[in-house]
């Protein structure tokens, strides 16, 4: 949580990290790789854009950021996603629960983009619920620009990590073990 505050302040480098996990989500990569989105991110004070594109085939445009715009880089997979998340000031993620809770656990502002191409798309349930509770922003590839334009990070409520103790307690009681 402190990380977010630091990054909002003095540090000039502010990275947006885009992650699609192990999926193929070209619609998201394409949506991020548009002029309106990169310009809006730049206007909002972000300096770097790193895209983890997974199994997608759409290759985003790299940029060294010479013209004062975003520095854009991409890769397919990495074993150190956690490091990218930690150093990010904003995360734009697919709707996988692993990705969502890892980001929220680090206290990073998060935009979840739902992949509408997936059949049985129960994943949007979780993103919608957490957006309703103001823990993250919820977007579709087509509405990503509007979401970034209209977002106010101050309105986000930090997510308090869950607790396995209630389940553990019920299981223990059910099996006849005493409470400690």
């Amino acid at each position, binding site marked *: 949580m402190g990380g977010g505050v630091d990054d909002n302040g003095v540090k000039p480098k502010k990275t947006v990290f885009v992650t699609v996990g*192990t999926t193929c989500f070209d619609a998201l990569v394409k949506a991020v790789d548009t002029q309106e989105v990169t310009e809006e991110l730049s206007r909002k004070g972000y300096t770097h854009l790193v895209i983890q594109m997974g199994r997608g085939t759409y290759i985003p445009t790299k940029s060294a950021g010479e013209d004062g715009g975003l520095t854009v880089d991409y890769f397919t997979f990495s074993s150190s996603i956690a490091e990218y998340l930690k150093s990010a000031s904003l995360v734009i993620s697919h709707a*996988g*629960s*692993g990705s969502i*809770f890892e980001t929220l*656990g680090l206290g990073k502002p998060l935009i979840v983009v739902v992949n509408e191409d997936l059949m049985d798309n*129960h*994943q949007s*349930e*979780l993103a*919608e*619920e957490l957006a309703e509770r103001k823990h993250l922003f919820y977007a579709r590839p087509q509405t990503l620009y509007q979401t970034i334009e209209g977002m106010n990070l101050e309105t986000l409520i930090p997510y308090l*990590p*869950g*607790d*396995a*103790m*209630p*389940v*553990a307690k*019920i*299981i*223990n*009681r*059910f*099996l*006849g*073990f*005493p409470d*400690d």
Partner: protein
Amino acid sequence: MEKGNSCCFSIMMVPNSIVVLIAINIIIVIRIFYVIHQSSKPLRNLSLEPVSTLIILGSGGHTAEMLNLIRGLQKNRFTPRVYVAASTDNMSLQKAQVLEASVVDQTGAGKVKEAAQFMQIYRSREVGQSYLTSVGTTLIALVHALFLMIKIRPQVILCNGPGTCFPLCVIAFLFKVLGVRWSSIFYVESIARVRRLSLSGLLLYKLRIADLIFVQWPQLQRKYPRTNYVGCLM
């Protein structure tokens, strides 16, 4: 009197095997209802002996949630622990091994081999596999699941979907009906399920195979009243 009796007897002679069959069926049905009834009630574990525990790891987010639950359980009560994951999922068992290694570090005893085992199970159906070939693979998966369950015979089963856990839970239930082994089956619905139970969750709920089903969102509990709302695990 005697005549009437023998007459009755001769009538009974023909369908005798049918009567036996019906009787067996009735006994089985009664047994199934008894098992379902007993499963919904807490155990009276007066000896407080540790319970052998089967932990079925789903993959990705499912595994992360399950390992969070395992961290919250007393390792000396839930022992030995057998972790099972799909043979196509090479991350889940690794993560479980990391967790178990940290348990060994905490207790200072180098007993990970005794307390925890790790096994793989064939998956009945891969994503995108055709339904025709999945009949065969489902059969193989079922036989493998049966083999594993005979070997493990756990007293407690912890699972949270997706499909991998279902055949194992069905076999565990059959073991209960047949009196082979009494397992308490606990199913934790994924945090990603906010409005509807997953297919595995729904089947275990409707067929009353799981002793307890936990859900992580209150609206889900309202929709399925026999579930237990426990808040978010993540």
